[in-house]
């Protein structure tokens, strides 16, 4: 191993210092670059995170609004369905009561007279060749060829209910 001549150490000192300075400057630059890059990266990440956060917040709010709208629509529909079902229940209850009352007509002292009037009506509608018989449900039925007339009490009651269907609404509407 050769040694440097005496005095060379001192002569090389400025070179060493220059090299050291350069290295230090390069290191400082690298460090600054790295810091800058890190700061940029962090900034971008933060911006991206903020963006994601905002989007998520907006989407969440929209989804929540849509959910709320859908659930309130569901609730309204359910409420409406309940009201309508109740109305239908009242209507069928009335129809059942009317049919029940009609059965009582057969025990009414005026029933034979009703039968006579219904028979006359059947004869009038179907003509003289008609055969008119009492129905087991009360009232009469008549036939003439391919034509059949149903004047049985349940049918007449149904007919009357239908003719006055506008009044049935008063069960759930005032006036």
């Amino acid at each position, binding site marked *: 191993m050769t040694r440097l001549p005496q005095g060379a150490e001192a002569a090389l000192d400025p070179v060493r210092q220059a090299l050291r300075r350069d290295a230090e400057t390069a290191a400082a630059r690298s460090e600054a670059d790295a810091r800058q890059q890190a700061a940029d990266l962090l900034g971008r990440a933060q911006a991206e995170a903020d963006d994601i956060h905002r989007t998520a917040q907006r989407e969440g709010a929209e989804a929540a609004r849509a959910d709320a709208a859908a659930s309130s*629509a569901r609730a*309204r*529909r359910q409420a*409406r*369905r309940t*009201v*309508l*079902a109740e*109305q*239908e229940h*009242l*209507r069928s209850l009335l129809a059942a009561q009317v049919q029940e009352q009609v059965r009582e007509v057969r025990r009414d002292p005026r029933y034979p007279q009703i039968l006579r009037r219904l028979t006359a*009506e059947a004869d009038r*509608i*179907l003509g003289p060749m008609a055969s008119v018989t009492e129905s087991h449900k009360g009232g009469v039925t008549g036939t003439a*060829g*391919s*034509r*059949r*007339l*149903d*004047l049985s009490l349940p*049918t007449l009651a149904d*007919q009357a209910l239908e*003719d006055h*269907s*506008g*009044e*049935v*609404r008063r069960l759930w509407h005032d006036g």
Partner: protein
Amino acid sequence: MANSHRAQVGHSDVRELRGPLLVLGDTEGVGWDEFATVDVEGGPQRHGLVLEVDGDETTLQVLEGTEGMALGGVEVRFQGRPLAVPVGPGWLGRVCNGRGEPLDGGPPVTAEDTSPVGGWPLNPVYREPPQDPVITGVSVVDALTTLVRGQKLPIFSIPGLPHLTLATQIAAQATASSGRAFRVVFAAMGMTHADIAYIRDRLEERSAAGELVLLLNAADDPVIERILTPRIALTIAESLAYDYGSDVLVVMSDMTSYAEAVREVSAARREIPARRGYPGYLYSDLAELYERCGRVRGREGSVTVVPVLTMPAGDITHPVPDLTGYITEGQVVLDGDIDARGIYPPVDVLSSLSRLMRSGAGRGRTREDHLDVAAQILSAMARARSAAELAELVGAAALSETDKAYIEFRTVVEKELLNQGRDELRTLEQTLDLAWQALSLLPRRELTMLSAEFLDRYLP
């Protein structure tokens, strides 16, 4: 009383069953167009309309079809009058099938008054011309093809385009500025169950508010029933408009399905077919429906009709759009290319027109600048189309600055003014502001249809 007893005479001499037709013998005193109930042994009751009376033979069209019926075991009762439906506000908030029977679990709709579904012919001199706008909240319609109270304005579409979405959006959002109650009757014909679910969901709010009547004929419901659906819808609308003073919008979708039902009955009656097998009277049949819209002297309300029709293969010469075009006052045309560019609603503004727009827009109706803005936009869109065609030939780089501005204008009109959310409601102010923003892209010298006063006041 005589009528109600007539209704109890059952006729069972069925002589022929042919498609939707039933020929009945041994009948007398039956009138044309009379309504009848058909009891089928072991099945639910069906309904019929008298089409023809010849001696003691009566031909009925059975609304539910004659499938599963045999010559024996059928009893027909005539009602002694044409089909009538109860009328009045009892329909509001209800969901019914194409014959007006409830689908919502409620009782049948009833009222003190009934009206025949065929409607009464209106003395022409009692008609008032349509006036004042119906604001739909859809920019392209409000700005460029304004719907007018009492007008009939169809939507022409092609299968696969979002015409149902647009019709439903209009039904959900439309209002009139008159201050009268605004009501909507939606008649859906030949819809899939998915479409019906969509309509019900989308119109839920209006239905719950008691402003909407929904009549739904599904694709798998009896075809012949569709002949009644628009008639029932219009009968309800007429009563709400003229007896109760509301402005009523009737949306009928899809009229092509309706016309197919008319064709089916015509074919079963062995009538001589006209174009594409549709009967020769299709024009008067459609006119009978569309002409029931309007305003009546001395009455408050109005009936506005928006029929939707799909043109098979986009053929505007198809009998249904063709004959509809003769009767209606303009059209809103949807276009597949615009739809492919992702624009909703995909309205081709250069093919669309509201002939009565002048009666519904402008000073004192919408905004003073509305008609001029609409004219300027349409004119600029036409110029943009020529510029785009030129660009295809010579390349965009060779275009003049003005032509480039027109192409940019068209892009902005499509993206900002025409394009809108499917549940986005835009006020007329918002719509006209967007229109002005698009117009600001053009050099001021090009805006020749707008007065200097409007330009100073509105140009951003």
